[in-house]
């Protein structure tokens, strides 16, 4: 029996932020309160924040195929260091996770090597090619929590309609990437003044709205349970709001990079800032932050995408997309807290509670009986990001050299501590 004392309890269900204690027992949360804490092994939290561990929907672990970029072992360590207690993997691996056999392989690998919980998503169509659906029933039985072709849009609307209809009959969640694929083909940045000056192939932000519009029509047609992996533009929001108001079973996510960076961060062709969809205008970024605060956008994800140096050290157009983010998710999100655009309970609603609810998981909350997946962090501790200190095998973070605030002090999965900040690393660390 362990009791966290003197903790700021960040509760995303009640949207409260109170000083108190939390008792865990046999891996689950047993009790919480504000008065005198009960007896037990006490962990002194020094008034730092204790929140449900992050549930990160959309992490690429490069197994199978590209283990030199990231493995379950390295991703697990990175997640623990970033306060992520459940990673939900993307199937955009080499090969794609599109058969029960591959799914069982990654499940076995994850169980062996990862120190945090791992849930797996399946591809929606074979090889993510957008022509034939995977064995959705078998994949569900084998443990797939959602079905997605990741950044590949199913171009053929007929195919997508059938996938959705079939998925609806099994009650599984389908995740789509909203883009009009012929408009966004080959684009490296968002169209506008910056793209024109840099002479880079660009996509209009309108392509995202067109993708949202099509998919919402299909959700209405089929009744499928649906999630947009990443929205990034203001123009896509009204359609989403309408769909929710009309009672469609739809949710949406946003990546941490689209909440904290804008198109100008690319600067002189810095490829670590090349992500998909591309970074947007500052107006769009602010609209996304606002949408998270008011609940229109449900989920914040890291969209962790490891890339080796070789695939990034290329001319911008040719360079690979994506950024590692498991360890920078929380400190980057703290920027929104420190700028008073979001509160901590709202943040953990988007990073823990909502993704857990959407996938039918019991974690992501501080309520009694929930798994004791917890993160203890200091929201104010400053540091300068050094990409070579990341635990990910790949170091492609856009935050290299950035001044950040917010350090994870400790991470627990089912009551077991999986990460502890080195004692001398921070003046506000544990046990001092």
């Amino acid at each position, binding site marked *: 029996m362990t009791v966290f004392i003197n903790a700021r309890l960040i509760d995303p269900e009640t949207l409260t932020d109170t000083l108190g204690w939390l008792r865990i027992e046999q891996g689950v949360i047993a009790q919480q309160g504000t008065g005198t804490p009960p007896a037990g092994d006490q962990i002194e939290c020094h008034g730092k924040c204790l929140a449900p561990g992050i549930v990160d929907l959309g992490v690429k672990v490069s197994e199978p195929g590209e283990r030199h970029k990231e493995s379950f072992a390295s991703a697990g360590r990175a997640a623990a260091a970033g306060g992520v207690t459940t990673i939900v993997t993307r199937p955009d691996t080499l090969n794609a996770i599109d058969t029960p056999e591959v799914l069982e392989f990654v499940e076995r690998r994850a169980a062996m090597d990862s120190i945090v919980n791992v849930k797996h998503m399946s591809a929606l169509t074979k090889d993510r090619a957008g022509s034939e659906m995977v064995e959705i029933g078998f994949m569900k039985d084998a443990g797939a929590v959602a079905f997605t072709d990741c950044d590949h849009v199913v171009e053929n609307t007929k195919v997508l309609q059938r996938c959705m209809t079939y998925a609806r009959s099994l009650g599984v969640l389908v995740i789509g990437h909203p883009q009009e694929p012929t408009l966004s083909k080959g684009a490296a940045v968002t*169209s*506008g*003044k*910056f*793209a*024109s*000056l*840099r*002479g*880079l192939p*660009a996509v*209009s932000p309108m392509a995202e709205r067109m993708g949202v519009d099509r998919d919402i029509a299909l959700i209405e047609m089929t009744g499928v349970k649906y999630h947009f992996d990443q929205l990034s533009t203001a123009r896509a929001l009204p359609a989403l709001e309408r769909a929710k108001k009309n009672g469609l079973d739809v949710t949406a996510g946003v990546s941490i990079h689209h909440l904290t960076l804008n198109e100008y961060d690319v600067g*002189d*062709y810095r490829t670590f800032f090349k992500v998909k969809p591309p970074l947007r205008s500052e107006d769009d970024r602010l609209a996304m932050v606002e949408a998270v605060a008011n609940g229109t956008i449900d989920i914040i994800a890291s969209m962790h995408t490891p890339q080796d140096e*070789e695939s990034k*050290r*290329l*001319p*911008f*157009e*040719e360079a690979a997309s994506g950024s590692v983010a498991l360890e920078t998710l929380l400190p980057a999100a703290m920027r929104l807290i420190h700028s008073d655009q979001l509160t901590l309970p709202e943040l953990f609603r988007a990073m823990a509670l909502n993704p857990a609810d959407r996938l039918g998981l019991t974690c992501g909350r501080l309520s009694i009986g929930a798994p004791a997946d917890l993160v203890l962090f200091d929201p104010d501790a400053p540091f300068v990001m050094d990409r070579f200190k990341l635990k990910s095998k790949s170091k492609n973070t856009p935050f290299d050299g950035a001044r950040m605030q917010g350090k994870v002090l400790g991470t627990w999965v089912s009551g077991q501590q999986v990460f502890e900040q080195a004692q001398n690393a921070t003046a506000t660390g544990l046990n001092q």
Partner: protein
Amino acid sequence: MAFRQKHLLGIEPLHPTEITTILDVADSYVDLNRQAHKHSDALKGMTQINMFFENSTRTQSSFELAGKRLGADVMNMSMQASSIKKGETLIDTALTLNAMHPDLLVVRHPHSGAVDLLAEKVNCAVLNAGDGRHEHPTQALLDALTIRRAKGRLHRLSIAICGDIAHSRVARSNLILLGKMENRVRLVGPPTLIPAGMTELGCEVYEDMEEGLKDVDVVMMLRLQKERMDGGFIPSEREYFHRYGLDAAKLAHAKPDAIVMHPGPMNRGVEIDGTIADDINRSVIQEQVEMGVAVRMAAMDLLARNLRASKNSADQGIMV
């Protein structure tokens, strides 16, 4: 005189006085080039490598001639035929060349930003001879020199850049340079060939050519880059010539003494009427080619001076 750059990667990093400096030096090289003895020893003992990852005859020969007239050892590498085909990355190619200790590297590459990337990895001075749709600084400088010599100034002019702006690095470098020197820049072309956000850069955009050419001092035509067309930007060449090709009727809307420019190679009958191109009272297209050699000599001369200065400082133990 001030020119502090280590590389010439684009017009964007240049200060207006640096642009003026290059043009002033280039003026002196125009005089030199018109003499029987055309040699200087500004680059004596230096090695210039021309690396062209994209086909070019005009720009490459202009750089080659410029280097030779300044006394450099010039080597041309046609990169399409070489290691790129064997799968070597741009950075490895750069490091290989760097090990040969060149002093000046002239690079053209089909991808925007590729020359910036390369410049980070080598010790020599890098000149951008065109990267993707990004910049082509020596073209903008030679255009500026041509305008300054024809008009007697390079400020408070009204200049129309016409045609395929979207695919043109020449247009980008030109509009940045002309803006920095305080001119009014108009962009004229079909909306499918005008990139987004241009008005935010201070340009006026015209879809009607006659309106766009009204009272301008300079008409700058661009090549309709057929090889860059994905298809479907314009209905046909003949419709393009009808609406956006420069002929006497459209040119009549410009000022009576307006000059006509074209970076070449021209598609006669597509973007420009042959008789306009050949009209010695209006067209300065041949002067542009002449200025090209002089401007490239000036740019390489200035970069070499900075290179020598930093080497001297390094030899004396001064941190640079």
